[in-house]
Each structure stands twice: as C-alpha cells, then as structure tokens.
C-alpha cells in the first residue's frame, strides 16, 4: 500500500496533495512530510484530501498535530475535501469546527 504525497506552491500557500490510504502504517510518512514543510518555513499549508481513498483517526491525528504546530508559528493548515465519506469522519469527530474545509485548492488559496 502506498501513500502519495505531492507538494506545490500556489501564491503564499504550500499545497500538499495526499493520495492513497492514510492509516497507522502510512501516517508516519505523512506526518514527517508535514513537519518537514513547517521546518522549511512553509506556514500556510493546504492539505488536499481529494485523492485520499481511506483516512482513519491516525490520519486525523496527523492533521490536528500539523495544525497545532502551524498555529504556534502563526500559520494555518486548511483542507480541501469533496468526498462525503471523508467529510463524515471530520463531522463525527467535531473537526469540521477546527479545520476550514474548502471545495477546491483555488478556493483555499483565493487570497494568495
């Protein structure tokens, strides 16, 4: 099982697109990439979840950890997600109130 991670810059934002399954096996790779980006000074991060086929609580933990880290740098982490089964997981855990969730990368980076 593979997790794909692609990074591109869009205006003042760094867009991290995630592909594949995010679970306890693949989450460490995702977490490391996020931390790397923050360390490189990218403090406005958009995580695009539209290529994600599966996301469990370990994946949610990586996102919450990333958001916390960015907030401590006065940065932000926002999401792009249009898949109902993924959105549902954010709703159940109340994380829709913690993350700004956009319908496209363009919308998420509109103020660039």
């Amino acid at each position, binding site marked *: *099982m593979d997790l794909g991670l692609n990074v591109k810059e869009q205006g003042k934002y760094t867009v991290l697109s995630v592909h594949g*399954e995010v*679970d*306890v*096996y693949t989450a460490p790779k995702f977490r490391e990439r996020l931390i790397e980006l923050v360390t490189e000074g990218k403090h406005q991060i958009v995580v695009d979840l539209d290529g994600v086929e*599966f996301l*469990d*609580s*370990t994946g*949610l*933990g*990586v996102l*919450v*950890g990333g*958001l*916390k880290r960015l*907030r401590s740098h006065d940065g932000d982490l926002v999401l792009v997600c249009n898949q*109902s*089964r993924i959105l*549902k*997981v954010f709703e*159940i*855990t*109340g*994380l829709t*109130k*913690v993350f700004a969730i956009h319908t496209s990368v363009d919308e998420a980076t509109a103020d660039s």
Partner: protein
Amino acid sequence: MAADVVALEIPARAEFVALARLVVSAMAATDIQLADERVDDLKLAVSEACTNAIEAHGAIDTAERVRLSCRADDRGLEVSIEDRGSGFDPSRLPDHPPVTDPDRLKFERGLGIPLIRALVDEVEITSSQGGTAVRLVMLHAADDIVD
C-alpha cells in the same frame, strides 16, 4: 441463510491493517444488502479496532497475532477483533473537550473508539488483563432498530 464465517489472523504490525480492511470489503461484496457507504463505515471501524489491537500487542511486545472473524448472516455483517494485549477499561476513557474549546487541539489521539461507536450499529468491547475483543455489527436494516 446459514452464516458465512471468514477468519483472519495477522501479525501485529501496522502494514497488516490494510489486509483486515480488504477482507471486510471482500466479505461485504458478497452481501448485497449492505450499501457501499455502510461498508466504508464498517471498514473504518474495523481499521480503528485493528490499530488498537496492534498497538496493544506492541506495548507488551508479544509475537501473537491479532485475530479477526467476519460473519455474514441474515441480520448483517459482524466483525470481531481479538487481541492478547493487556486490556483497558472502555468505560473510563477520557472525554474530549467540546470542539469549541481551543484545548481540543491537544487531542491528536483518542478519536478511534468514539469513531467506532458513531459508525457501526452495535459495538461490544470486552476487555481483561488477558486481552480485548471488540465486536462490531453492521445491520442490514438499521432503521428497524430502536436506538
């Protein structure tokens, strides 16, 4: 319909959780009465329970495998996940702060069991010092059941 039972034993390592999900998908594919969305919910719940089981084995460093059993019958699909970890008290898990509280961000963990409870129709957790069994049921007709 007689019950179909598939049993699976996996090494207690992170890379095998995907296999548990795969078996649930395959089992669900033979059960046309479960909508795709409900199968996805069950897969997520199974994945959470397997992750906990694997972590429980990791904590005591045992080479024992984690056991899954999937049972399809007239009522629905039932998946049990059993480990030989040191157990826990499911009634004493910490409550999360309300989502409006900034402290919420302290919680990178502890979302698994709340998710499981929200996703499937029946959850039964039996735990002792010798291990834990989590039984998850997705019913064919959840609407018939009074919550």
